[in-house]
């Protein structure tokens, strides 16, 4: 009695499948395979050796870079979420619909200009003799070294992720059913308890998504740690560049890249679990 399945739905899915296969699964498989290849006389040869994995994961500098990257991305995600929240809260609850629309438009504007250009601008602003130190010097502070430091990199990460985090948080906060907030007041929750017990749990998914996006973007970013962070200590993306430049070590760079992807998968799954968790 089984019906022959119609080919129609499959035809519609085909473009997406081809795209995903060609530009995601294919390169991923190739990269994983490449991590087992051999480099001889600056040329790669397909092989199956564990030497690349052994060398990279056996080295202290890989793990130094790994934990620096994880730590910075975590800090950037938390910092961005905290900095963004008051702004998102104001946009969601304190301003008119029109103001909110304009604000969201202006939050998209930064994406019009190249990220690299914005980072160059920060190089000027944060320089030892730059305008920020100039103003601080005027009130008798500094000069501070802000470039080529963890602080500089963090400024870059915020430039990259803050607009997106504010947008995601604002949407999730603005979509909370207002009756839930009123119900909380009505049941005796003061403004703080309402925020902690109702607003944050109700917007949890959007807040976590914003936080995870900040982590993912900062984790893989090369520009900020390089141009503002001074590449010391190197992050994983800087490590990839260094590795490919030194003796065509693409297989070892592939090891780093695979480790990054695995990490992001773990973080993304953990986040989805946290966002939709406790729903038995």
């Amino acid at each position, binding site marked *: 009695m089984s019906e022959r399945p119609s080919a129609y739905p499959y035809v519609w899915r085909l473009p997406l499948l081809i795209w995903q296969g060609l530009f995601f699964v294919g390169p991923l498989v190739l990269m994983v395979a490449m991590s087992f290849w051999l480099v001889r006389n600056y040329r790669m040869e397909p092989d199956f050796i564990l030497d690349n994995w052994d060398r990279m994961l056996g080295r202290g500098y890989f793990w130094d870079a790994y934990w620096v990257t994880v730590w910075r991305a975590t800090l950037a995600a938390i910092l961005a979420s905290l900095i963004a929240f008051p702004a998102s809260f104001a946009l969601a609850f304190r301003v008119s619909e029109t103001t909110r629309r304009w604000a969201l438009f202006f939050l998209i504007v930064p994406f019009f200009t190249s990220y690299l250009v914005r980072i160059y601008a920060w190089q000027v602003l944060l320089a030892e003799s730059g305008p920020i130190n100039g103003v601080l010097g005027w009130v008798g502070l500094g000069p501070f070294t802000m470039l080529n430091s963890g602080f500089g990199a963090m400024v870059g990460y915020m430039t990259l992720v803050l607009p997106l985090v504010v947008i995601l948080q604002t949407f999730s906060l603005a979509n909370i059913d207002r*009756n839930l907030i009123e119900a909380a007041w009505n049941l005796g929750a003061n403004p703080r308890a309402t925020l902690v*017990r109702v607003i944050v749990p109700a917007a949890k998914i959007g807040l976590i998504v914003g936080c995870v996006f900040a982590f993912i973007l900062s984790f893989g970013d090369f520009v900020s740690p390089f141009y503002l962070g001074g590449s010391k200590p190197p992050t994983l993306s800087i490590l990839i560049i260094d590795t490919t430049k030194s003796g065509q070590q693409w297989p070892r760079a592939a090891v780093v890249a695979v480790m990054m992807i695995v990490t992001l998968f773990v973080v993304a799954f953990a986040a989805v679990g946290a966002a939709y968790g406790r729903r038995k």
Partner: protein
Amino acid sequence: MTTDDPLVRFDGVSKNYGDFQAVKGIDLTIGRGEFVAIMGPSGCGKTTTLRMLAGLETPSAGTITIDGNVMNDVPAHERDTPMVWQSLALFPFLNVKENVEFGLKMRGVEQSERHGRAMLWLERMGLKGFEKRRIDQLSGGQRQRVALARSLVTEPQMLLLDEPLSALDAHLVIRMQGVLTRLQKELGITFVYVTHSQSEAFAMADRVVIMGHGEIAQIGRPQEIFRAPKTRFVAEFVGRNNILPGEAPGQELVVAADRMTVSAEQPEGRAIAAEFVSEEFAGTGIICYFEGPDGAELKAQVTEAQLESLAPEPGKRFWLSWAPGAEHVMEAA
């Protein structure tokens, strides 16, 4: 019952939103243990009135007193005025028991007592065994009862209800009306019930407040409102009656549909000739619709036996009359 020691007093309370005046200087007292329904068409100010009582809106003028205290500047979370929303506003991220415990938790009641009181109310509302359920795993009627338990668990002296039954299926509405009236009698607390449904208001309330255009049009017991509507607005809103020209110019009478007699022959005294239009079965009787002089719609409630003997057909001519004293003279608009 209402005026000696009222629980709630509205004195000249208004609410403006910019140029729009949602509530226009209303005076209202609500007694302890009274079931008051505030009824009116949408936009009449009934929900705004309720929200001011809960502290979710601030009056633009006038004072609201609860239990002798002026409440105008008391924030919502410091009032003891739990409310049941039309959407119920249950917290989707908390389970049934956590929802019921919320108000106790906010008042700093410790966990063991919270648990005990929440379980008691869940049992009372027939929700035993559901305490760990998620809200979206409940039926409409069960959610309704969770919302009631959540509001009543703190033992308030007053419960506010904002069209709580309008999202339910018809058969559940009747059942919940029974649940609500029984609860109100058992607890002996004040219920303030906002609705646009006169059947809900008349079935449950001790007193009905009819609002229109931000003003109170009439306050009275359901029978009073039904038999003796003060104005044409009230009469039309209540329905199931006939609005007829009175003897004096500009004067209007109202005769309830169940006080109207239908006869095939012209009776003695005042009677109106009308053509039968249609009939509608209404549970306790049958409402017959007629077209009177000038195209006015007239209604009369008859029994099944009467309907059979009248054998009406559309266009057939009848006489509508009423016993002396059955009519009520309304105030001129």
